[in-house]
């Protein structure tokens, strides 16, 4: 072994660019968001550094003429809808993904690679194009309406677009590849001998599924749930394009405050609520498994 000359400077030098970029463009700006959420709204948008808790009160109350507070759940409804839709999306993705991931894992290697490629491919296709495709399908005179009419099942129908159902369809469609991949990875690690052992001990297919396969796939399902749930919380395109203007989620509510509504402090306060929701969920579920699965996914 040659004696290695240690240059501690290299470590610092290598990490410096990423850390400086993150500090200047992310960590400090997120700190400024906190500041803005306690600031006063500027007369023409923007904000002024005058301390107030008004933005947080605004999430819950309307302020009347004389400064009295009146409870208004409009923003709470948006927050609740965001949490609920994200949870339902996660559950639907779980239910759809398991049989598909299991089926893929049973195929021979070449077919397996091809099918996994087919699962990941839509994820490379522009997000906005994928959401847009549902407008053609669900909209007035859309594919579904035309098909049902051609079959003589209906004369006319209300547009399926704009509402919770359309958003849910869009969310599931957008994020389901993120659920299939980690579940597939954990099924691949499953030892087939365990399944056969269960059968040799007279476990039926159903019992084997419930007592052997599903428990062993839990890490993959958990990772998939995080990978679907977290981006759902911050979804913007699906609620904007499929939800219409009235049924909002937190993502497009924030966007609205920084755009047309010109209420930056309120937007900042809602951003912090969203960030808190994500961080609570991530910390509760363990950061490590997310990191691990994200790595497998991007591999």
């Amino acid at each position, binding site marked *: 072994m040659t004696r290695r000359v240690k240059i501690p400077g290299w*470590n610092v030098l290598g*990490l410096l660019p*990423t850390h400086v970029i*993150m500090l200047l463009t992310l960590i400090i*700006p997120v700190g400024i968001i906190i500041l803005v959420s306690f600031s006063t709204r500027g007369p023409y948008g923007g904000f002024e550094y005058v301390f107030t808790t008004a933005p947080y009160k605004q999430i819950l109350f309307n302020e009347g003429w004389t400064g009295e507070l009146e409870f208004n759940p409009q923003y709470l409804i948006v927050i609740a809808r965001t949490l609920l839709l994200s949870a339902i999306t996660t559950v639907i993705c779980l239910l759809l993904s398991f049989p598909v991931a299991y089926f893929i894992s049973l195929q021979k290697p070449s077919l397996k690679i091809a099918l996994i490629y087919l699962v*990941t491919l839509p994820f490379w296709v522009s997000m906005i194009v994928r959401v847009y*495709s549902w407008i053609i399908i669900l909209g007035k005179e859309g594919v579904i309406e035309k098909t049902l009419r051609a079959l003589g099942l209906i004369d006319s129908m209300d547009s399926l677009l704009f509402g919770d159902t359309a958003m849910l369809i869009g969310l599931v469609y957008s994020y389901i590849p993120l659920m299939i991949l980690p579940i597939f990875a954990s099924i691949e690690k499953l030892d087939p001998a365990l399944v056969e052992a269960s059968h040799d001990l007279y476990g039926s297919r159903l019992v084997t599924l419930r007592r052997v396969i599903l428990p062993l796939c839990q890490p993959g399902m958990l990772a998939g749930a995080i990978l679907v749930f*977290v981006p759902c919380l911050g979804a913007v395109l699906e609620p904007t394009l499929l939800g219409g203007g009235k049924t909002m989620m937190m993502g497009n509510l924030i966007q609205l405050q920084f755009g047309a509504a010109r209420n930056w402090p309120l937007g900042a306060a809602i951003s912090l609520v969203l960030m808190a929701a994500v961080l609570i969920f991530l910390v509760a579920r363990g950061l490590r498994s997310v990191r691990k699965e994200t790595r497998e996914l991007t591999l």
Partner: protein
Amino acid sequence: MKSGSDVRRYPGFGLFSILFFVYLYLPISVVIFYSFNANRIVSNWGGFSLHWYTTALSNSALVSAVKTSLLIAVIATTISTIVALMAALVIVRGRDVRFRRISETIVNLPLLLPEIVVAVASLILFSQLGLVNGIMKLAIAHTTFCIPFAFLPIRARLQGMDANLEEAARDLYASAWVAFRRVTLPLILPGVFSGAMLAFVISMDDFITSNLLNSGGATTLPVYIFSLIKQGVSPQLNAISTLIMLASVALATIAFLVQRQK
């Protein structure tokens, strides 16, 4: 063993999976199908035509949006891949690195926060700095969120590489730089390539940040498409979408094949 008697198989999973793949590809196929529709009204079939493709390609607003997107993506990809490579070398290979775990979390920070929050942070930052150049704003913001996407494949490749090879080069009196350039870099190149590819696609596809920061003459392709969707469904929009899908599938296939390389 016959498939029927294979205890690992579950009846119905096959059919379910086939239906799933139909569901996955049907919406995309609908867009492609209607892009060849001669009729101005999207869902009324008026015969096969390439008319909307020629309209799309001669649409100057579209061409300029593509140019803007490409410029920003190339800048963001180049910078994020280089700095991510530097960080990955230290985090995976470095000796006596203090705060290794925290350093890694910092590099991956954009993945842990919702994108809209990161976008809001950039918006407030640029408004405080008084930066008005749209291209510059987007290039900076895209670089930030592309870093983890470039970092993860590079790190995975480095972890899979035999560290002894580098040691051997050093034992044979190669300098640190020569060992990196002649041994490490060629071995991890597929990882660097797929990292760059991922960063490029993420940047090209970004809507949330680009839309929130949209000002100063920097309308990217997704933001332009969004404005078209707001005007209503049109066959030209379908043609543009099909072209974008074609480009993405080409990129995805190249990335997939490079990754598979041992």
